[in-house]
């Protein structure tokens, strides 16, 4: 724990060649920017930025995020009306797109580039450089060993060189010594890892520019074409226009869901299958696909995922004039997962003399639980619909666009209909001659996510490169070996071996050194067998 202290006056001196104490003003813009750059690219700053990045991500997981769950953000606003606007001002509902978050990771990546790029050049320069000459006294190196051999110094050195060459060391020989170095790929791996991270950021950016995400709810028996108007939600990248959408069409023929029917996990889904027909573009042949979770459909690089499902009860509505003004399935959204109790609304703007509106609950397996009807199983075993009926003005002709899942009851009056759950085929006769509603059946719907991300493959390659770089830099150590051979005082040749690991935070070089030292000794002893002295045999 030693901390270097700079004198208070010259605290921000730019290191080498600093003008000395009290020289703040002559530093100038170049000096300051050089100082700033050095600070930014120092490991200490990188460390601080890394921790800021970790810390900055925390609120993104604890607070609801706009990009992931907008409804939860709305919920948060309702329950914390005073706090929420402040959090919003700090972009805490959108952390991963927040300017301050971008500032952290951009600074980090600049810091990284500033550190890594010069190192890459240095590595390139050292690619053909020879190891330094052997130091005079090898006994002072972190690892050292001394052997004696009957070989002449030159022959011993030649044998040692052969061993080191066999171990793929880069060699440099001199008068009575040889120095060797190995493990250049460690730095290569290190650089590869960091450059791959830069590339990964680029790939993510590429996806954000040229990719798009969309959602579409598709009722069984219907189809849609991949156009902006046919999509329920469309989030294009910055450089994507509606003309860039791949012109495929998809129809849902049938959807089946299977559930666990017994045991503690009763009601848990076990399989979803959406049987689709699709054609890649108008006029091209129609293919069939069984779309399942974990098995997306790939259409010209666009992927289509099954991400949700639900029920769409079918209603036939006759208005006060006796005309059938509505006869179609209405997608209801599940409000609980255990029994798939689903809610939805029906809007009948064409009904006369009054427009009609209904808010309903669909229960796939309705069971009377203590006076209230509840759904106890997600499969449609005993489907019931319970509705609240309104007449009046739906407010759809003017004002802001409405959600199809919400009824604006401002211009509506509730009709006095006895709340009675409908089984398939049953009807409600609306009072006052407003019309009739019949629950004629139900269908299933699926929701599809459609994504196009051209950055995906580059991101994968960058990730794999980062992993490869990581492994190289972790499991290769850069080390130097030195050997000196000379005639000892007793006339026998002394073989001095020294070793130095240049980067070995995990340790372990001493074992490798011991092995190499043994190999060197064996090489010198082995080739001298015919002429060894009895003492030498103990080597």
């Amino acid at each position, binding site marked *: 724990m030693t901390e270097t202290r700079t004198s208070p006056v010259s605290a921000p001196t730019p290191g080498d060649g600093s003008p000395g104490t009290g020289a703040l003003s002559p530093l100038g813009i170049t000096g300051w920017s050089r100082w700033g750059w050095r600070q930014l690219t120092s490991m200490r700053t990188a460390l601080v930025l890394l921790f800021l990045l970790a810390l900055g991500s925390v609120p993104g997981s604890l607070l609801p995020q706009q990009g992931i769950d907008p409804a939860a953000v709305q919920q948060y606003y309702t329950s914390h009306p005073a706090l929420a606007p402040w959090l919003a001002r700090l972009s805490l509902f959108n952390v991963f797109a927040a300017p301050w978050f971008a500032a952290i990771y951009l600074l980090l990546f600049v810091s990284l580039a500033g550190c890594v790029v010069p190192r890459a050049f240095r590595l390139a320069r050292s690619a053909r450089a020879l190891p330094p000459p052997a130091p005079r006294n090898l006994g002072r190196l972190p690892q050292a060993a001394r052997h004696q051999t009957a070989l002449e110094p030159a022959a011993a050195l030649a044998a040692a060189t052969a061993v080191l060459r066999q171990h793929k060391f880069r060699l440099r020989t001199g008068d009575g010594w040889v120095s060797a170095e190995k493990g250049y790929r460690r730095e290569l791996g290190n650089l590869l890892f960091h450059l791959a991270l830069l590339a990964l950021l680029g790939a993510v950016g590429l996806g954000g520019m040229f990719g798009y995400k969309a959602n579409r709810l598709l009722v069984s028996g219907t189809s849609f074409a991949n156009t902006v108007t046919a999509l329920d939600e469309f989030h294009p990248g910055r450089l994507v226009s509606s003309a860039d959408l791949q012109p495929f069409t998809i129809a849902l023929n049938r959807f089946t869901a299977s559930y666990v029917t017994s045991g503690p996990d009763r009601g848990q*889904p*076990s399989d979803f299958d959406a049987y689709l027909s699709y054609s890649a573009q108008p006029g091209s042949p129609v293919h069939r696909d069984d779309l399942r979770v974990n*098995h997306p459909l790939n259409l010209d690089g666009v992927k289509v995922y099954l*991400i949700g499902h639900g029920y769409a009860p079918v209603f036939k509505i006759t208005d006060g004039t006796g005309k059938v003004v509505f006869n179609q399935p209405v997608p209801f959204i599940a409000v609980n997962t255990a029994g798939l109790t689903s809610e939805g609304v029906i809007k009948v703007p064409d009904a006369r003399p009054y427009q009609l509106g209904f808010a309903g609950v669909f229960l796939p397996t309705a069971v009377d639980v203590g006076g209230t009807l509840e759904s106890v199983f997600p499969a449609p075993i005993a489907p019931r619909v319970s509705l609240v009926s309104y007449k009046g003005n739906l407010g759809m002709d003017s004002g802001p666009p409405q959600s199809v899942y919400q009824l604006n009851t401002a211009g509506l009056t509730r009709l006095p209909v006895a709340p009675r759950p409908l089984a398939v085929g049953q009807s409600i006769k609306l009072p006052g001659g407003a019309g009739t509603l019949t629950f004629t059946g139900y269908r299933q719907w699926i929701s599809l996510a459609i994504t196009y991300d051209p950055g995906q493959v580059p991101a994968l390659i960058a990730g794999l490169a980062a992993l490869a770089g990581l492994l190289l830099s972790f499991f290769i150590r850069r080390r130097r070996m030195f050997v000196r051979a000379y005639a000892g005082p*007793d006339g026998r040749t002394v073989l001095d071996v020294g070793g130095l690991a240049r980067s070995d935070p995990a*340790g372990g070089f001493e074992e490798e050194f*011991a092995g190499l030292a043994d190999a060197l000794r064996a090489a010198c002893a082995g080739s001298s067998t015919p002429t060894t002295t009895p003492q030498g045999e103990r080597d």
Partner: protein
Amino acid sequence: MVVNQGLSHLSDQFLIVTVALYSLAVLAFAADFAFGRRSPAPAAAEVPELVPAGVSAGAGAPGAGGSGAVAPGAVAPGSGAADGAASGVDGGAASGADGGVDRGAARGLSRGSQAGQPAGLWVRAGISVTALGLAAHIVGVIIRGFAVHRVPWGDMYEFVIAVSCVAVLFFLGLMIKYRPYYLGLFFMAPIVIIMGLAQTVIYTPAGPLVPALNSYWLAIHVTAITLASGTYVVGAVLAVVYLFAERHARRVAAGLPVRNTEVFRLLPSAARIDQFAYRTVVFAFPLWTFGIMAGAIWADQAWGRYWGWDPTETWAFITWVVYAGFLHARVTAGWRGRRAAYIQLVGFGCLLFNLLGVSIFITGLHSYAGLS
């Protein structure tokens, strides 16, 4: 596919036996501390003579450098190679029971002081019982896999059991290879607590998986994360022991009063513990990276995006960043040692929060814990 309840119960029973055996191992390791008979430590001066020239003798010196540096004096000074080699051979014999121990001491965690000692009765009992427990543990995990017809780390209970299995496996390998006998207590006690909690608080009966988990990526992604987490557990235990040993060494160096000297004398040196803690992270970090990448590929298959800042993804990222910070701190002046150990523990805290906090308190796409 239907869960085989009989096999599931059998697995539970094996795992209860496992915890019982691990508890016995903890008792044995504790008994070794309390009653273990050991010969007095050899004087530091004789250690270099017992070790072949060139092989580290520094292990005997308290506070030897992180890379196990040989003191320059270890090179047999002017005495000639024949002597050095001879002393290597003789030393092997002189050190008694196990000639290979010297090497183990040089490579690993053990101190010179215990290098020549064979494992005591209590240690041998502790290791044997741990090995037996590990066998029951592995069998229990495998049977659970057969009961549910998939890899047996699909819900949180299974995950915790599998992670502790990896940690014990790693620990036992460490024991056999490097013989840091006196760390046994510090490893096995947390493992017993973790497994006990797993079987009581977060126990989930064997069940089928939701469709989103039905993928061979479960085997790849969760296996990598399990292996990495198990290794991180070992690293975290080492970091805690390191912090105590380092504090003790610092107080000794400063001449301050110290307690439990006997305990710390038996433990490997702080530098050795630190080095091994680092090695566990070096092993776990690429696995963790791979696990996150495999998860991203799977997320792309299942949810239509490879990264979406789901709470679990976010915390996996935070954990990754903190451990990356640890790796960088290890090569930054002023951050080595204690600070790095604290960073490692923060990283482990993030890992735990991701496993427990996020699974239980935060709803996300990874809410598969089976708890409600």
